[in-house]
């Protein structure tokens, strides 16, 4: 087990360097001049632009910029944006919001989709099965901003249950509605996977043996089927969590949650290179670590996967 984990961690370091370099290059070869764009329609004086380029090292060759960036990183310095704000400060104020939102949404996805998948899988072909399938697909086909804005009007303005915007009300009130909307978009995939997995497991030989042995249905499903059916679902859920951390831009904007998604989106638009690299790298890192954890979890669930 230790060998397995350490090998995955070593891979992580290699991927980290590769990914930061690729992202760094990608941002800096984007068309457009971020310094000239700082002034928007009001062009900055040439001398000001020149000064800013020198200040942020944009007049250096790309490889030197990257090395400088890595040098800073070694000291825990993520650099500054082109308006002089510290990147780590910007991220520090936003990560808690995003993590809270993502975890809430993810937990809702897990609970609801596993329940739905189990219900559908155990009653294959029934009305429940078909309703779950249809319902989740229909929910997912509504554009997310339509769902978001409609929910905001209904629950925020008409009913007044949840705040319209911001996190001032704290968890759970400020997070529950956006998290639920995000969760709805994960239901279709995960619940169907869970359903299929349950159907397969229920038809497997060991379940028949357990039934023949006289074990109660509750025990068969609760202990044996759940554990075996969970392995593939855990993988998908983990990937979803990674996606949630970086991919909730629309919902963050609608509910004015100052999270990382918004930060990344704005940073890409304004070509704030250091900010994009900083946020993206952290995201990659989280994604990689989640993957390692998932590998460990699935190998515990199903020891056959541990091929070391």
């Amino acid at each position: 087990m230790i060998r397995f984990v350490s090998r995955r961690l070593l891979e992580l370091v290699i991927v980290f360097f590769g990914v930061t370099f690729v992202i760094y290059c990608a941002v800096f070869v984007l068309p457009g001049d971020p310094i000239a764009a700082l002034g928007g329609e009001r062009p900055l004086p040439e001398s000001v632009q020149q000064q800013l380029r020198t200040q942020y090292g944009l007049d250096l060759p790309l490889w030197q910029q990257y090395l400088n960036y890595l040098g800073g990183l070694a000291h825990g310095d993520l650099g500054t944006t082109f308006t002089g704000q510290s990147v780590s400060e910007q991220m520090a104020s936003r990560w808690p919001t995003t993590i809270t939102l993502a975890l809430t949404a993810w937990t809702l996805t897990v609970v609801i989709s596993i329940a739905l998948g189990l219900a559908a899988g155990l009653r294959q072909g029934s009305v429940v099965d078909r309703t779950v399938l249809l319902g989740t697909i229909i929910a997912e086909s509504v554009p997310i901003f339509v769902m978001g804005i409609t929910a905001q009007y209904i629950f925020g303005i008409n009913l007044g249950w949840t705040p319209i915007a911001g996190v001032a009300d704290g968890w759970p009130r400020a997070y529950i509605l956006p998290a639920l909307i995000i969760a709805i978009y994960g239901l279709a995939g995960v619940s169907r996977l869970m359903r299929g997995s349950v159907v397969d497991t229920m038809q497997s030989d060991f379940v028949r043996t357990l039934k023949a042995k006289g074990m109660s249905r509750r025990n068969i499903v609760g202990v044996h089927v759940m554990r075996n059916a969970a392995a593939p679902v855990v993988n998908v859920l983990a990937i979803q969590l990674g996606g949630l951390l970086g991919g909730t831009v629309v919902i963050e904007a609608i509910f004015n949650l100052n999270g990382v998604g918004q930060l990344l989106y704005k940073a890409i638009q304004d070509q704030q290179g250091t900010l994009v690299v900083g946020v993206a790298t952290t995201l990659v890192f989280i994604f990689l670590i989640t993957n390692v954890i998932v590998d460990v979890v699935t190998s515990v669930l199903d020891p056959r996967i541990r091929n070391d």
Partner: protein
Amino acid sequence: MRGLLKGALAASVLVTLVLTGCSSPGPEDAGGAPAELVVGSTDPVPNLTPGRQSNAFGLTLSVFSPLTFLDGEGELSYMAAESVESEDQTNWTITLRDGWTFHDGTPVTAQDYVDTWNTVAYGPNAFENSGQLSVIEGYDDLNPAEGEPTTDELSGLEVVDDLTFTVALERADSQFPIELSQAQTAFYPMPQSAFDDLEAYGKQPIGNGPLALTAAWTEGEPIVAERYEDYAGEEPTVDKITWVPYADRLTAYTDALAGNVDITWLPATRMRQVTDDFDEDNIFSFAAPGISYLGIPYWDARFDDIRVRQAISMAIDREAINGALFGDLNAPATAWTPSIMPGNPDGICGEYCEYDPEAAAALLEEAGGFDGQLTLHFPGGAGHDDLYNAMANSLRQNLGIDAIAKPSVGWAEFGQDRNNKVLDGPFFSRWGALYPSQQSTLRAMFSAAPNCTNCGGEPIPAVDAALNDADAAGSEDGTAYAKAQELIAEQFPIIPLFEESYNYVTSDRIVGLKASAVGEPILTQVVLAED
């Protein structure tokens, strides 16, 4: 689809019910004594130093007071300055009012102004608004094209006594008192304590205005300003203003609908339905000194013939677009500057700014038609999609040109392609003047010197000459600039589209809202409902 959506929502109602325990928010404290205002702000504010900010005008004007002030009628009055005078329009004497203090208690002196302007103009400081000071003599020495400047003082500034200083300009400029008005924030004063730590000052600027910031601002958090008791100017009507940052204008609007925000910007996407959402009394629309154009790629020979440009202009139905997209809140442009400008030559564009599809088609025919695809370029992600698609449609239908609208990734890409002259079709162009004088817009859009990054048309030397004449000879009434606009009309370098408006929605607590001459509401003079 609708019904199914309802189904999904009903399911989420259940969950929300359970999780929120059916609680509903109690009404916010309406507040008896202190008059408080919550402003929904949607523009990022990296730095609040007046010499650096470019989108926190409401806040800056609450925390600072300008030397001169232009009201909604375009009338010039003196605020922090007692007088701004000149014999020859080149050498100006500014006399400050006595008894004004900064929020740290120190008196506002002529030396503070001179030190501030030197700091803002000094190239290596890289203050974003430094260009506003380029009219002052010696600006070029602080901003050399190559290398470090040899001096850090503007040669045109001289302190006479505590309350008087003189300003020598690079050239005669009759508009100088107007340039000192509220929106040109580079001219605002900073106290001596600012120069020790400009970084900290950017987070909590100490000003000379009616309200003082209570704490240093942190990213993503509200900014709060409270009444400064020793303010020497007109008493503010509010005691406290809180600016709450929103990532999206629509969210701020929705929060205003729910009553959590007292005033916020009306987003373009809600211009048509705003009358359904808000009472007439809570919608404020102010004419703004902004104007939009369709820039012409003068580096592309297909647009050389003036008739091609005029035909494109006549093929666009400004009236219909204004109604369909802007809820009639903007106005079709009839000149190259908006009509809010003093002495604006309204209608100088004539028939070429009026919708006439037959004449447009005939004119294009006469000019020999148009070869290939016509692409309208605009910066993406800024809400211009509908307008540009509508214009492309008009050109396709009325002129039979294969016209499409194409957004860029963001401003950075658009700006670079425009400056490098690689755009292959008409493009987004606009100017929001910082002071209501035709000079601001005409110099930004049509003057070749010092640079013409905004010019959406070939620079015309005769226009430059006419502008210099008007600057020297003119007065505050602005009629002197008509000559320059006549020359522009003859050449038709770019196509005027819409005069802009700045639009706001408010809560019931606000019964009166006035804008200054730049279309920004004056937050410290809001009229509040009696509680």
